[in-house]
């Protein structure tokens, strides 16, 4: 059932304004290209879902694409704050951002419940945390032992977007390395968009921890080589740690941020243009200085 298409068409056709979108990736395989395309197409009122909203969500939030964020940890990994996220939460700029906040264990349980067709999931968690007063969680009793455990509602995004290393020509998707919660996020969603580094004749399944999504669970596949930059795709690219550090400076100032997004995303035809631009370290100073 997977259709091969371009990222532009996939986002145009499958991500209408107002839907809930999970772009998952646990540091590895973050679908940056897809996030840029959402910004370029000026999508609005999205509910963004992700355990670890990072720089790409900072960009989406900073551009006002999101109405709400469902998450468990929002930071620039290894660097510090997400300044656009903070600005939205602390100052409602550029628009207020509703939060639905969980712990990692809670979010993982919610996705797994969603992927399993259950209305809720259970875990030992939340007890004693003030999160209980600020999120959707219930205590339920074990019918056999009387113990209390936490219940959290299933998470079923309208659209899940992930980046993977490979798809074969039938549309089966293969990813490996740190696979995070991507499989659950995809299986929980109504629509699944996958960007891939490469289309191959046969998936490279040598090595442990290879994860597959069969073609009939995927809606659309678009090849976007390098589509996880500045995150990485194990076997294809390295994490651009310098970018994450630079992001702290870019995102701190709303004007610098705006200039950066215009030059690197809005003025570019596609993610290829962005990738060419980040190669050129002089460009950044020019953009931010201008």
């Amino acid at each position, binding site marked *: 059932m997977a259709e091969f298409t371009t990222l532009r068409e996939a986002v145009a056709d499958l991500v209408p304004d107002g839907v809930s979108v999970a772009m998952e990736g*646990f*540091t*590895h395989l973050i679908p940056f290209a897809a996030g840029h395309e959402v910004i370029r197409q000026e999508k609005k009122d999205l509910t963004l879902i992700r*355990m*670890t909203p990072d720089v790409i969500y900072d960009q989406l939030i900073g551009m006002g694409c999101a109405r709400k964020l469902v*998450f*468990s*940890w*929002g*930071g620039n*990994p*290894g660097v510090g*704050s*997400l300044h656009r*996220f*903070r600005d939205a*939460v*602390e100052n409602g700029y550029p628009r207020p951002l509703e939060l639905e*906040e*969980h*712990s*990692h*264990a809670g979010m*993982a*349980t919610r*996705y*797994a419940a969603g992927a399993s067709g259950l209305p809720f999931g259970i*875990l*030992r*968690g*939340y*007890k*004693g*945390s*003030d*999160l209980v007063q*600020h999120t959707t969680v219930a205590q339920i009793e074990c019918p056999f032992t009387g113990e209390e455990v936490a219940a959290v509602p299933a998470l079923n995004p309208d659209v899940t977007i992930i980046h993977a290393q490979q798809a074969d020509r039938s549309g089966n998707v293969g990813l490996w*390395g*740190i*696979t*995070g*919660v991507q*499989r*659950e996020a995809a299986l929980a969603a109504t629509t699944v968009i996958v960007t891939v580094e490469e289309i191959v004749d046969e998936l490279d399944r040598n090595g*442990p*921890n290879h*994860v597959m999504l069969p073609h009939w669970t995927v809606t659309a596949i678009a090849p976007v080589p390098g589509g996880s930059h500045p995150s*990485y795709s*194990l076997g294809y690219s*390295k*994490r651009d*740690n*310098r970018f*994450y550090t630079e992001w702290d400076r870019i995102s701190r100032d709303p004007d610098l941020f705006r200039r950066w997004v215009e030059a690197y995303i809005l003025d570019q035809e596609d993610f290829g243009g962005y990738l060419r631009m980040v190669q050129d370290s002089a460009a950044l100073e020019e953009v931010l200085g201008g």
Partner: protein
Amino acid sequence: MVEGVSYTADEMMTVTAARHLRDGQVCFVGIGLPSEAANLARLTHAPNVVLIYESGTIGTTPDVLPLSIGDGELAETADMVVSVPEVFSYWLQAGRIDVGFLSAAQIDRFGNLNTTVIGRYDQPDVRLPGAGGAPEIASSAREVIVMLRHRRRAFVPEVDFVTSVGFGRRGEGRGGHRGAGPTVVITDLGVLQPDPQTHMLRLVAIHPGVDVEQARAETGWELEVADDLGVTEPPTSEELAVLRDLKARTEAAHSA
């Protein structure tokens, strides 16, 4: 500072934390100082310590420190990589973790930790990253080692938000959680442990060259000091050499 070996306060903190790990223990590790400490332990006295990062890498033995919780190095040197739902269910929640490391923006005298907001939740002065894996590490790991720099703005009488529970807002105890909670808080000034009766954190050791008054001044509540206050052994030259090597390798790898 001692015997001509000079070291920084952060190095003292890292070395102290590393020493708290015993060989063979299974540790749930976060990025930053905990990762430094756990890997230092692995490269010195605890070669068989098992490191688990919440990205799903189990038994990982990175040659350089990860910058993010999901660096490729962690996956490539791991015994196994599992999904994130699994790391929290089959591994953390199941009680397989001996030691969890946590840090925070605020800690109170009962070891409760805040990584969510400074100020009110609905109108925060500072929005922090949030819970991440911390609440369930705090409840499920057999014990928790807290590492954070000793500053008055962090050591507060009451945290603005209990993200991860220590001994409760009023020090009432562990409320049925399986793990023992924060058994030790390691700072750049010294070491704190909860009083077995009151659950209040008190200073049990100071690092060489640190004054007790300094620790008191940087603590937002009236800090109790143990009668038998110890002084931490300074880092050995081996500990320092291994730690500095690790950090130099890390720097070189990440700036490449």
